[in-house]
């Protein structure tokens, strides 16, 4: 395990010794390696390792804990520090509250839209309206209708309309005249480098002025997480991140990368395919996971 790896890397440091530049060098390599294996971005891993070094230098290694254990503790604390911070709630208040989903292809937006509707209806007593704005993917609109039916949540769609902006605007009107107090807008998956599609989501956002914009990310994303998170943040300034498929065994380093690069809170995580598989984000659990 990591603590043992660190122990081995320390140059013969017994209890009552101090951590110095000399004896910590090898274990810092192990820190960086652990992060890269966990898919943390290359630069983020370098910066993080530097922070850990600064935190570690000069620390006394007490007889009760090995230098390896102390290193793990420092890494853990630093990860929680970087990924935690204030718990920022979802902003679904408004008449109606409007939540806009965004993200790359296959990240889990449609599934999460259903989960969110379920959560807002059953945990927050809201009357949500799901909106099908993915006009491209085969059977995307049907997919959302199936979820809506399973949940007893209304789905607004218009298969004749090919402009997501018009669909979204009409949906808001429909929500107002049908006492829906939250609107959840599902959109098509898109690449950050697809200019036309990025303009589309900018336009959807401008036209409906959401109370909450979410960026949905697959937790097994590797080094590319930094690029897509940055671009989406620059273009649509999202309020929160959703990390999906955490029921897998990926270490999830993208969580650290995204948080440090765009400094937006991770609000929820997806933990399965069923509609109740939504959980709050726990930085401590994520830190454990990343360190493996």
């Amino acid at each position, binding site marked *: 395990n990591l603590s043992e790896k660190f122990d081995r890397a320390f140059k013969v440091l017994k209890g009552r010794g101090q951590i110095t530049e000399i004896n910590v060098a090898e274990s810092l390599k192990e820190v960086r*390696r652990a992060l*890269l*294996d*966990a*898919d943390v*971005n*290359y630069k983020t891993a370098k910066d993080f390792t530097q922070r850990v070094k600064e935190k570690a230098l000069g620390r006394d290694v007490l007889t009760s804990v090995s230098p390896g254990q102390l290193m793990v503790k420092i890494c853990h604390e630093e990860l929680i520090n970087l990924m935690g911070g204030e718990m920022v709630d979802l902003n679904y208040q408004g008449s109606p509250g409007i939540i806009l989903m965004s993200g*790359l*292809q*296959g*990240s*889990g937006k*449609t599934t999460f839209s259903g989960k969110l509707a379920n959560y807002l209806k059953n945990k927050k007593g809201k009357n949500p309206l799901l909106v099908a704005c993915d006009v*491209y*993917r*085969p*059977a*995307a609109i*049907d*997919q959302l*209708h*199936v*979820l809506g039916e*399973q949940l007893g949540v209304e789905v607004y769609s218009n298969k004749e309309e090919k402009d997501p902006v018009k669909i979204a605007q009409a949906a808001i009107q429909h929500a107002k005249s049908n006492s829906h107090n939250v609107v959840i807008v599902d959109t098509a998956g898109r*690449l*950050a*480098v697809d200019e036309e599609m990025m303009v589309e989501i900018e336009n959807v956002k401008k036209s409906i002025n959401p109370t909450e914009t979410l960026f949905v990310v*697959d937790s*097994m*994303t*590797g*080094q*590319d*997480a930094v*690029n*897509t998170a940055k671009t989406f943040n620059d273009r649509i300034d999202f309020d929160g991140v959703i990390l999906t*498929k955490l*029921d*897998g*065994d*990926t*270490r999830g*380093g*993208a969580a650290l990368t995204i948080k440090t690069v765009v400094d937006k809170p991770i609000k929820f995580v997806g933990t399965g*395919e069923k509609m109740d598989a939504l959980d709050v984000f726990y930085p401590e659990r994520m830190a454990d996971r990343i360190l493996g």
Partner: protein
Amino acid sequence: IVGKSKVDAEVLDELEEVLISSDVGVNTTIKIIERIEERVARDKYLGTEELDKILREEIAELLEENNSGEEVDFSIPDTKGEPYVIMVVGVNGVGKTTTIGKLANQFKRSGKKVILGAADTFRAAAVDQLIIWSERVDVPIVQQGMEADPASVAFDTVQSAKAQGADIVIIDTAGRLHNKVNLMNELSKIKRVMQKVIPDAPHEILLVLDGSTGQNAFEQAKQFSIATEINALAITKLDGTAKGGVVIGISDQMKIPVKYIGVGEGIEDLQVFNKHEFVDSLFS
């Protein structure tokens, strides 16, 4: 200017960053760098151009050859008159269903009789999605609607294919995370059931990987191989900024060739894997 016999540290640092940032992973990056250092010690290099050439050769070496050699088109091996069965597997959302649509299109264009099997009976509107693809490509599809037993759909599909003298069968399966034992067992069952109709089926078990997946791809390849013996890889969404570097290590360690790459959401957006172009794209 005599050939250098060592690679300078600065060059190695830069190389490490490029490879890691392309999701090649630490282990494979170390292996590549060691191979380069051996080559340089042996052959000497005259500068960045020569080193560049060595680098690209060494990475291409790690990419497993296709059984049919350097594939340049969408072809299938000779299966002596029985349908060639392709089972498509992978974790959730990677692009399996879309890849099947594109693949069916390529085979149909080359004159093959293709049949699709809608064995994802779990995810909302999964069968509808594949039906739309079968209509776009104009190929028959075998389906039993949602919540049917996936093995039964696969069985039906292979049986129909045999009866109709189809050339190619492509079975779509539900996305599943490789750490879910019951779902991986289901996959093994689907495979076994098809063997009742055609003992050699499935001839191809295609694992689809998302181009932006990180090191977890190794675990995916490992677990899916235990459940069903993967013998081909497809990597999708390479039209984005992700490099798909994980396939280098997977191909090398597990000796599985990459057959196809997905470069978009349209029917034409599928290419036969070309390892030299792939290596070039890592450095572009």
